[in-house]
């Protein structure tokens, strides 16, 4: 088998831990933006549910300053691209 075709994997336990960590870090960095997106959903039980979920996470992450990298990126590159 060609070297490039050999699958390179990691044990399930490590991959599982990686996925959980990925979700945690992604949530921490994006909770505030996620909450803002949920605020513009149309009124109804779906919006209420997502707001109830994202609200506390957004508050905690904003208090800890985790929302700053995303806000910086949005303010600079994101705005330049989408305005």
């Amino acid at each position, binding site marked *: 088998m060609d070297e490039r075709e050999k699958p390179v994997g990691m044990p399930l336990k490590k991959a599982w831990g990686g996925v959980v960590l990925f979700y945690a*870090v992604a949530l921490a960095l994006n909770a505030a933006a996620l909450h803002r997106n949920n605020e513009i959903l149309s009124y109804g039980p779906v919006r209420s549910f997502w707001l109830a979920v994202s609200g506390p996470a957004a508050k905690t992450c904003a208090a800890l300053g985790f929302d700053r990298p995303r806000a910086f990126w949005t303010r600079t590159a994101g705005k330049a*691209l989408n305005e």
Partner: protein
Amino acid sequence: MLFPTTAFAVFFFVVFQIHWALAGVPRARKAFLLAASLFFYGFWSWKFAGMLLASALINHALAVRMDALARAAAPQRVRRRWLVGGVAFNLGLLGFFKYTGFIFADALFPLLRPICLRLGPAAVAWLVGAQEDVYPWLAKIVLPVGISFFTFQALSYVLDVHRRRVAPARSWLDFANYLAFFPQLVAGPIVRAAELVPQMERMPGRAEPIEAARAVFLILVGLFKKTVVANWLATRLADPVFAWPERFAGPDVLLGVYAYAVQIYCDFSAYSDIAIGTALLLGFRFPANFNAPYFATTLQDFWRRWHISLSSWLRDYLYVPLGGSRAGAARTTVNLLITFLLGGLWHGAAWTFLAWGAFHGIYLALERAMLKALGRNKRNAPPAPWPVALLGRIWIFHVVCFSWIWFRGGRLETVTAMLHSLGRWRAAVPEVATWSALSVAMVAVGFATQFLDGDRLWRAARKVSAWPAWALATAAAIVLTGILALGPEGVAPFIYFQF
């Protein structure tokens, strides 16, 4: 449920946890995976999730019956009868939902109108009445998302079991999981039964290593291509140009067409990348669906690189059974034309899709003849010198761009207006222009993402694969944040959902 949404992120997290937690209980795991796939599809329509399940059960029953007949050495005509039943069922399902409107509204009624006018007032009154009855009924037909994809998967299964190329799945649950597996359910790749059914039967074990680095790479690349590049190109360049071509000058329309070419590649290959990546995290392997298609030097080469799972499906189940290239040049041309006309219709029920397919079929036949005359039709022909190959790439990119005008135009009027505007130097509305440094840069970035296809970056990928899981996860979350910050608010559906 769309891939780049919070709902899908939550759904996938839950599925990932339970799928691996149930690794020791295969039957429960299979049942859970099927339930998850039906939930994914049912998120859009529960009614059609039921239809998908029914389709799986009927196709599996047909396959089991055909296999039993073959084992009992039943006459060929008896087995063929079951095959015809299976093919008719699948094509009937696809035809009803996808082509009924086209047949009545775009083919039958326009054909009957002049005839009825000649026949007199009674015939006209009958036609008006028929239209009044049929149009409200047509409006109620909703196209199930991804029906073209899962129907083609079911067809390949029935045909392969009939040809005894694959055995029927061990249980209906394995086949239903193959047909409804959520990563590739609504927009492919069209994975063959021979590839995925054995994986569904065996189910990935806990001891098998997971290709997490490759999966994460594919998912992030897919998200970048879709949320940053494809969405930007669609809203800023392609959509305005195709909506009002008469307002723009030729160079602006040209950039709009380039933008659409890059947009459709980024959009569709992004779906395939995310599908392959999410399946990998669950322990399943899909074949690649794209391999830098705009680097092709001939149109034949393009079809070996673009939507590989569909082009190989059409080759194996349509072109080759029709006789392929074995029966002379004239017959080959007819076979190519039939294959690509049906390939065009597969994409959508509209005359412009048929024209798109016809263009590809005719061009491929001409290209074949030309390559034969130049002696370059052999598989082992030496590669062309690089300037010739480069010119070939540029030429084929423009040939494909020309065909995209038909594909995206939707209506003959739009296509005509686009072609007319392409030849006009000045815009009808002077301040309307698409050219800017940012526009060109975005088209170029989208075009360059083809370098990420296949295993072009395998050395870098190997290095990343060696990273510890925590570093990979943190880096991926940071890159994801950057991608989300670069993308616009909200997510447009993938282009290939409509097919």
